[in-house]
């Protein structure tokens, strides 16, 4: 009798908790959908980071123009606000460099010899610094032996720096959100770097 009561209590508590979280998630979804509607009404592209659905969408007028699959994601710190968050800076160790054209160097076939800025020149590992101290670190999935070795460093970094940063930000009474996103491939990571412009509006669902 007692065990049945306990079982019933557990089931009830799980169900209540589920309904409560479902309800609160829906409220947040409403806020985000309202924010997306406002963005979609403007002639601009925007990015949606779907943490739960593990995908990043590049959208305009409500249409998903491109989507990238997230392989792994982890987050730490404050929950991001349910409003458009502008991207302040893309930072990477070796940012792509534009080439300068020397005036007068152009010939009829000179165009074919030009070295241009292409997708392959984009970095695959970088951080997106957003308004409100939100940092999204992106990298591709480790495939080769060396990239697996490098991922050990990323794990170390993840478990070391955000907690220390959190103390500093707490002392300054500022929020801090750290998100690490692992994308499917190097190309996906480079494509996102190419497409996401500083100043772009982002929504984090």
């Amino acid at each position, binding site marked *: 009798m007692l065990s049945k009561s306990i079982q019933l209590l557990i089931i009830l508590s799980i169900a209540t908790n589920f309904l409560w979280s479902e309800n609160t998630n829906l409220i947040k979804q*409403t806020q985000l959908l309202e924010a997306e509607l406002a963005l979609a009404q403007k002639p601009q592209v925007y990015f949606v980071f779907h943490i739960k659905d593990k995908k990043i969408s590049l959208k305009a*007028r409500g249409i998903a123009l491109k989507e990238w699959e997230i392989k792994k994601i982890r987050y730490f710190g404050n929950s991001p606000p349910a409003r458009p968050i502008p991207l302040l800076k893309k930072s990477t160790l070796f940012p792509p460099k534009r080439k300068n054209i020397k005036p007068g*160097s152009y010939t009829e076939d000179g165009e074919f010899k030009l070295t241009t*800025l292409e997708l392959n020149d984009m970095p695959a590992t970088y951080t997106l610094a957003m308004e409100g101290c939100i940092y999204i670190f992106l990298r591709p999935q480790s495939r080769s032996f060396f990239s697996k070795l490098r991922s050990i460093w990323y794990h170390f970094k993840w478990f070391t720096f955000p907690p220390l940063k959190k*103390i500093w930000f707490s002392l300054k009474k500022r929020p801090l959100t750290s998100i690490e996103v692992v994308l499917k491939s190097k190309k996906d990571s480079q494509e996102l770097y*190419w497409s996401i412009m500083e100043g772009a509006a982002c929504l984090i669902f």
Partner: protein
Amino acid sequence: MFLKRQHLIPIIVISSIIFVLLVLEGVGYYLGGKSAAEWKKDSAEAGLEKGDLRIIQTKNRILKKRIERLSPAGFYIVIDSANNILYLKKGPDTTREAVISCGSGNILEEPDGKRRWVFDTPMGVFEVKSKLVDPYWLKPDWAFIEEGEKIPKEKEDRIEGGMLGDYALGFGDSYFIHGTLYTRLLGKNVTHGCIRVGDEDLKVLYSASSIGTKVFIF
């Protein structure tokens, strides 16, 4: 067996540093973990009224529908400048896929340093503003500077025919979707910002689009 005093001091210092770091890490984790709990419950604390579940669900459905309704009704053009691919779309369907050339991303500076051009294809949401048949190229200043030529004063000296293919679709700020003589460069980022398309694809694009057709570039 026993460590000398001179060895003991660095060990104590290093151990203390490690201990302090570990304590800081622990505190940081506690604070971060506490904040991370907000990810699940913060909307409840956002000061919103706890409305009925069904009302919120209906509201969300309406919002999704309103967002969906913003998508273009007819044909629209999507340009992936990273991969140099153009999609002609109608609703969710792709009716044509074309290999194109987008901006090189190179920089040109005037020899006296007064003006500077970045040859990027602009990204964002645009619309077709003009449709031209047998277009000619009105060469801008940068084209002469790049070729090391003197900038002409007369407009007639800037006109160059046959460079832009049979059709051109203008989408603002002197940017066009046009044809090319350099078809072997399609698929590469080589242009000065315009979008070069092969002849057959350009013909389809021209007939499918009208003034106001949306052009999405990313």
